């Protein structure tokens, strides 16, 4: 057994995972990483399936269930090819083990993100199901002495019509285990699907409506201590000195330890740990800390936007075309830092054991986290056994690019020399102020129309911190272009003969940034689709037909745009509001993560400028719709998530301090503000793509375009806040 990888620098691992080229070899027998629930069952044809003699069908999910419905989706794919009965299927979380459970789009790393869970698992789980089905059939054929081709399978029952014989999966399980794994299997044609495309219930509903679902916050281990940490008030500040005595005087507090990210108070329960931290006195060294205001940052970004950046895409000569254009328009857009603000604040349970380390949490980047924790404890990554639990939301946060919260938990365990398992709890304030935000961005767009109102020139300059920099995906940055900064802008689908997209990625910012649901598209869809709307108006064209005219080479964009417009009744006038109300309708279309979404938003604006989004009609094309109801749920939720950010969300700084701390000053959408959402799914035979993120990007531009239609006012700064009332 080689241990050479243990001392390999983290940097090399990161480069490997990022480039998807350098294969990392995990030489340890990872069977030992098998956790808790796994037990020998009658038939385990592959890493994703176990069938018990009690007819139970256990499907092993390699991806984190954080609300997006992936347990249901993954299980549907496998159960479909297996021909299992949906009621007999249960889902269990895979142990962290990249050799069996890597994300096929991420090379040798296990993890969930980029709306890839279904897309990367599609072929893998179909084959896993079909192969197991073939082994069950072969077992029945041998027992019944009939040709395998005459055997049918449906609803967990294997049948031979000619002899009238039948057996359940459980009855055949032991015999199936003796069959050879087939080298080739036939996958179903879409017309044969019995689960895919149908409405079947989620697998996590029962546990989640009864309170039985176990989240990280709910883990209790014998002797476990709960830790709450005093974090520095500014990014880059460090502990100068601290007085543990007042904290230790609090009932229930057991220990106070310094760690790289602050001072941890360990107690027998959460409330005592919090009270201990409140009592703790820490003096911070803030000489090198972040000390800027949001306004200064924005001024700096505006300054950068005056000079050319790294070119991400260039076609024709946009400078010449702009100079010759009959009419030019220019607009600047500003986007704030955003917090993910999952309902369950970040947390992690870590315990040192005799032969390694165990961790329980909503792990989203298992392989990366294993590597980071292994380095801290001087273990092999496989000795870091991660139990992936339900996550109370993530929106990108739990795939921490610096493993901040899991590493913090591990540091605390290390500081107490592993004497007790530790549950690190971030209170809402810790979560809100810990950084790893969606980066602040400034966009500057210029465009030219010819005399006929055709769009002939487009220039788009973006200024904002790189999210891939310093992450396991850093090597995707090529020639100074972080693809996650310009996605949606550099991939603008409209036929425009002269176009340039360029980027500044300021590196002097000390604010940690990270992917946030829909990543670059969370800002690029807004600036491009709002600017398009302004241009359509300037050209005297209808926003839908004008877009469609430029989408000839992008039929899937055009398909969702047409469908959304048709279902929203775009051709008919919007019914008028009450006396004094102004109503408006706006549209936007955007592709992200290879899924296509168009939305038409309808708004009502009161005479004082307050407004409500009444209805959002959505059309989505995400390939084969595995679970249409889960897709609808993701689109409904994505609309709510995106509207929340558009209305009020912003993380801002005064003298380097985050101004927001809890939900009173970082306000999330509430039920009264939720619009009616209609979801229409394009029938497709293309391989399935993601749906967790793609519903988010078009919402804000559709709403702001609707507000412009209602009021004539173009909002170019998010959040919308009080811009219409003041």
């Amino acid at each position: 057994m080689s241990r050479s990888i243990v001392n390999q620098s983290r940097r090399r691992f990161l480069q490997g995972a990022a480039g998807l080229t350098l294969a990392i070899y995990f030489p340890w027998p990872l069977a030992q990483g098998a956790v808790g629930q796994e037990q020998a069952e009658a038939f385990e044809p592959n890493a994703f399936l176990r069938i018990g003699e009690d007819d139970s069908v256990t499907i092993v999910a390699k991806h984190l269930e954080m609300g997006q419905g992936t347990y249901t989706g993954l299980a549907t794919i496998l159960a479909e090819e297996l021909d299992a009965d949906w009621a007999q299927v249960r889902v269990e979380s895979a142990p962290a083990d990249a050799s069996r459970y890597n994300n096929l789009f991420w090379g040798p790393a296990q993890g969930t993100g980029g709306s890839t869970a279904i897309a990367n698992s599609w072929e893998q789980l179909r084959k896993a199901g079909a192969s197991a089905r073939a082994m069950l059939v072969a077992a029945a054929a041998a027992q019944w002495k009939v040709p395998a081709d005459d055997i049918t399978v449906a609803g967990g029952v294997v049948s031979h019509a000619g002899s009238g014989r039948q057996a359940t999966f459980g009855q055949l399980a032991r015999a199936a285990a003796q069959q050879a794994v087939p080298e080739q299997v036939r996958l179903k044609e879409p017309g044969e699907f019995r689960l895919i495309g149908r409405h079947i219930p989620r697998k996590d509903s029962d546990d989640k409506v009864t309170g039985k679902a176990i989240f990280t916050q709910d883990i209790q281990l014998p002797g476990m201590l709960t830790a709450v940490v005093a974090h520095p008030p500014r990014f880059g500040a460090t502990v100068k000195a601290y007085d543990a005595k007042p904290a230790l005087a609090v009932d229930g507090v057991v220990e106070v330890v310094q760690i790289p990210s602050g001072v941890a108070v360990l107690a027998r329960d959460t409330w005592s740990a919090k009270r201990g931290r409140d009592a703790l006195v820490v003096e911070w060294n803030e000489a090198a800390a972040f000390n800027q205001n949001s306004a200064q940052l924005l001024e700096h970004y505006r300054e950068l936007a005056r000079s050319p950046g790294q070119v991400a895409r260039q076609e024709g000569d946009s400078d010449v075309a702009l100079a010759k254009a009959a009419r030019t328009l220019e607009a600047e857009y500003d986007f704030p830092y955003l917090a993910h603000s999952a309902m369950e604040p970040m947390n992690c349970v870590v315990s040192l054991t005799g032969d390694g380390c165990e961790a329980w949490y909503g792990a989203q980047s298992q392989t990366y986290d294993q590597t980071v924790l292994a380095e801290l404890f001087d273990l092999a990554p496989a000795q870091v056994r991660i139990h992936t639990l339900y996550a109370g939301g993530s929106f990108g946060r739990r795939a921490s690019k610096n493993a901040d919260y899991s590493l913090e938990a591990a540091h605390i365990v290390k500081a107490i020399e592993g004497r007790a398992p530790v549950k690190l709890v971030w209170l809402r304030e810790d979560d809100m102020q810990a950084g790893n935000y969606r980066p602040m961005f400034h966009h500057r767009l210029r465009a030219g129309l010819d005399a006929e109102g055709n769009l002939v020139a487009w220039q788009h300059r973006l200024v904002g911190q790189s999210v891939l920099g310093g992450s396991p995906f850093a090597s995707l940055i090529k020639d100074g272009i972080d693809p996650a900064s310009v996605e949606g802008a550099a991939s603008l689908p409209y036929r425009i003969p002269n176009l340039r997209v360029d980027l500044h990625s300021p590196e002097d910012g000390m604010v940690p940034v990270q992917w946030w649901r829909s990543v670059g598209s969370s800002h690029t869809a807004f600036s491009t689709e709002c600017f398009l709307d302004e241009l359509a108006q300037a050209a005297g064209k209808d926003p839908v037909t004008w877009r469609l005219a430029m989408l000839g080479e992008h039929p899937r964009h055009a398909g969702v745009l047409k469908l959304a417009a048709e279902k929203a009744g775009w051709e008919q006038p919007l019914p008028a509001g009450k006396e004094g109300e102004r109503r408006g309708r706006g549209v936007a279309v955007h592709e992200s993560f290879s899924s296509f979404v168009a939305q038409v938003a309808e708004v009502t604006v009161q005479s004082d400028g307050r407004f409500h989004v009444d209805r959002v009609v959505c059309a989505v094309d995400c390939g084969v719709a595995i679970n249409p109801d889960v897709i609808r749920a993701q689109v409904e939720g994505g609309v709510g998530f995106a509207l929340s950010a558009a209305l009020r969300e912003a993380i801002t700084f005064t003298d380097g301090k985050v101004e927001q701390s809890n939900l009173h000053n970082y306000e999330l959408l509430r039920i009264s503000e939720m619009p009616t959402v209609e979801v229409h799914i394009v029938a497709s035979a293309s391989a399935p793509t993601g749906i967790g993120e793609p519903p988010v990007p078009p919402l804000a531009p559709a709403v702001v375009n609707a507000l412009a239609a209602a009021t004539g006012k173009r909002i170019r700064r998010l959040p919308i806040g009080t811009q219409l009332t003041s």
Partner: protein
Amino acid sequence: MITLNINGKEMSVEVAADTPLLWVLRDNLKLTGTKFGCGMSLCGACTVHMNGQAVRACVTPVSMADKANVVTIEGVAQSPTGRAVQQAWKSLDVVQCGYCQPGQIMSAVALLEGNRSPSDSDIDRAMGGNVCRCGTYVRIRAAIHEAARSLALRAGS
């Protein structure tokens, strides 16, 4: 020593009187269905019933629960309304991440206990203190109407 009546059972705990009920439920009594979200009564994830009223356990000192009947998500199925709401939540697959849902359900049950036929604006008022970051509000609204319908059917039969 404080004696509590939780889901119809008497339980005693040795904690300071000002300890929030939330942490007594979760850490002392291991009833972890009630969730911590904000600690400031802003998100509703910790909603429980105290003598039939929806309260935020994160800001309710345990001493206030002394001699009160407390119902948590673990006990809500003891009432027909609780069962109807949970069933509606399941039949519409309301949940996504699920973390806020025990609180949402407790608020919905309290609403329906006092108002068998809530309007959309009644729902907005009663559910306004419960945040769902996944944005399941469309289905929360639909599930409350669905539970109201099923309770009305039961009452009529």
